[in-house]
């Protein structure tokens, strides 16, 4: 994932709450069900990264996302 200009997608979309049930917004940040994309690659701001990581962990617990790579 190489990008020239990185920006926080959640900030520009004005997302205030990241829902763990909304798997479609989470999947881009866990490529092939592996580790979460670090902030330095995805450009997500720190407050949204915290919300995102919590949502991903919740989704994993409910088997909406996998813990291990496919």
């Amino acid at each position, binding site marked *: 994932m190489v990008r020239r200009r990185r920006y926080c997608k959640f900030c520009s979309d004005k997302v*205030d709450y990241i829902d763990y049930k909304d798997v479609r917004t989470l999947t881009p940040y866990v490529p092939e069900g592996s580790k979460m994309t670090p902030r330095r690659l995805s450009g997500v701001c720190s407050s949204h990264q915290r919300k995102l990581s919590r949502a991903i962990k*919740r989704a994993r617990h*409910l*088997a909406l*996302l996998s813990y291990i790579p496919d």
Partner: protein
Amino acid sequence: MRRYEVAVVLAPTLTEEEVDQSIETFQKIAEEKQAQVADVDNWGKRKLAYPINKYTEGIYVILTLEEPAAESVAELERRFKVMESVIRFLTIRVDLDLKRAEKFKSRRQSKKRSPTSTGETDKIQTKSVAVED
């Protein structure tokens, strides 16, 4: 009032009737403990991202509860642990997060209304100054 989101994953072996029945019992348990069931969302069968108890599918049900204390949630979780048809559950408290989201939203709107208009005129002024120099 606290707001809770209780997500339950049921075994795929249950029939639709059994699913409805268990949802009803969940509601009953919650109401017994003075909680109001604000919403019930039945997603139906969904593939699991990884097998749980040798099941590859699960029936997802999401309950939204409103209650003054955490009593019904505690009772529900205690029952979930015993029930064999429940293969996973997750309870989260959402009222605080939603309140915060609301705060951000209102702050954004108030910012949009007043200070930006003055900020723009400021910019124009500084620009004209720079040209004069």
